[in-house]
């Protein structure tokens, strides 16, 4: 492609953006609003993911041992459990430790159990799996091992949590896909109007022998510029807003582990730009197809 053509394409694109000022403004506004919602939703999704991950990581299986188990049998059982492929870590908690932990949490409510033989608790293993989703399966296997009195992992809570995070992820993806599609449609329509305004010019270009790409480039560049500006604005807005949200949360909801801004904002900005530019360029191409048939 000739360099003077590139200069011509950019000049034409800029001229068209200025000439169709209101239309350009509308396109940018549409992309800005759409990508702002999209970006916010992405941040929300990332954080929900992070929080559920945090919760999942804390879920563990507690196995209560039979009371009459001897020390060597406990050790054998520990080895058997750690050898399960999905198991990450096994911690032995004697009933004395368990009682001490309980007392430190509940204080005086459980006073008076210190005396020998009055401890109602059992020795136990606290087991973490490599991935939280393996917990139900591992729990089931553990139940079949000898010397284990009871397996506890909060069945309901864990399964509900997994179902919930799965749903959040899919709804989020569907929502984002829908929004991106809407933005594409809107910018295609807006550019179609600017192409419409120049239908005569396109026809003349075709008659004097312009190639299809020569005709397309100015419009594609126009779309890419509009989409790019439309992506930059929400990226800047999100940059500022997310910093504020994280700062506020740190003070007021310190237990919520939000993803730190520097970890997500750069990639979200890149992603928004990519989406904006793609939507703009693709929108132009789509809206031009009809006009090239001369």
């Amino acid at each position, binding site marked *: 492609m000739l360099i003077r053509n590139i200069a011509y394409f950019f000049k034409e694109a800029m001229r068209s953006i200025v000439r169709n000022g209101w239309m350009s403004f509308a396109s940018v506004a549409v992309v800005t609003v759409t990508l702002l919602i999209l970006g916010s939703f992405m941040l929300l999704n990332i954080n929900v993911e992070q929080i559920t991950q945090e919760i999942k990581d804390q879920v563990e299986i507690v196995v209560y041992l039979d009371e009459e188990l001897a020390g060597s049998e406990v050790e054998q059982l520990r080895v058997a459990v750690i050898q399960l492929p999905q198991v990450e870590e096994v911690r032995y908690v004697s009933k004395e430790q368990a009682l001490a932990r309980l007392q430190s949490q509940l204080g005086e409510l459980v006073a008076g159990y210190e005396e020998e033989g009055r401890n109602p608790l059992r020795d136990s293993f606290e087991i973490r799996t490599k991935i939280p989703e393996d917990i139900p399966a591992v729990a089931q296997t553990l139940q079949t091992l000898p010397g284990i009195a009871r397996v506890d992992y909060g069945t309901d809570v864990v399964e509900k949590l997994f179902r919930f995070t799965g749903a959040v992820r899919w709804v989020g993806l569907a929502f984002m896909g829908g929004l991106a599609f809407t933005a594409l449609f809107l910018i295609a329509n807006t550019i179609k109007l600017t192409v419409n305004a120049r239908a005569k010019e396109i026809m003349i270009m075709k008659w004097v022998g312009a190639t*299809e790409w020569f005709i397309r480039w100015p419009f594609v560049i126009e779309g890419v510029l509009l989409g790019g500006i439309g992506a930059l604005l929400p990226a800047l807005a999100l940059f500022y807003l997310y910093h504020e949200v994280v700062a506020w949360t740190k003070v007021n909801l310190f237990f919520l582990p939000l993803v730190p801004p520097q970890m997500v904002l750069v990639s979200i900005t890149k992603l928004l730009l990519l989406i904006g530019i793609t939507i703009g360029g693709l929108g132009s191409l789509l809206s031009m197809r009809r006009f090239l048939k001369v």
Partner: protein
Amino acid sequence: MIDMQHVNMVYPNSVGALKDINFSVERGEFVFIVGSSGAGKSTLIRLIGREFLPTSGSIRVFGKEITRLRRREIPLFRRSIGVVFQDFRLLEKRTVYDNVAFAMQVVGASPREIRRRVPEALEMVGLAGKAKRKPDELSGGEQQRVCLARAIINQPSLIIADEPTGNLDPQTSLGIVDLLKTINIRGTTVIMATHAKDIVDRMKQRVVVLENGKIVSDEQKGGYSHHAH
């Protein structure tokens, strides 16, 4: 230069249709295509410009079968022909100069060449002093001259004109046809569809008469009158 063999164009309401057209034009000819409206003049001209394809038949231009051109070959083909329309088709927001230069920009000519050739073309059509005007500041005849300048700027070997004087008064029309003839004398083949009887009679050129989509007469140095109904 142009050779049409058994060209048929079928339209649902038969207006502008063509039936078994066999017709050829040699390099350097000046040909009028005449006939009443709906006889198929315009269809014939536009087929030569590859605006659309015939229902059947062969159309060779510059020795090339243009009904089999690939999509990306069409622009290159069009660069070798100049086109003049009845409704001028100028860009209103651009100056006369820009309208002509546009046709050169589009085919990737260098700015230097554009600066050299556009004034030459404007001079040739008699608009040297009006380069900076916009089309709506010009008369109809002057606008059509701009179109002529645009049509010749890329030095095509063929010009096709579809009723170029259709919107002009007789005196102005004559000026345009004279200009086309001058271009023709310089070596460019010209094919012009028209129903301007006076002009055709006066020019004494080859005349092809279309009637209901058929060629009913094709005479060197012909006239319109004795075919008019």
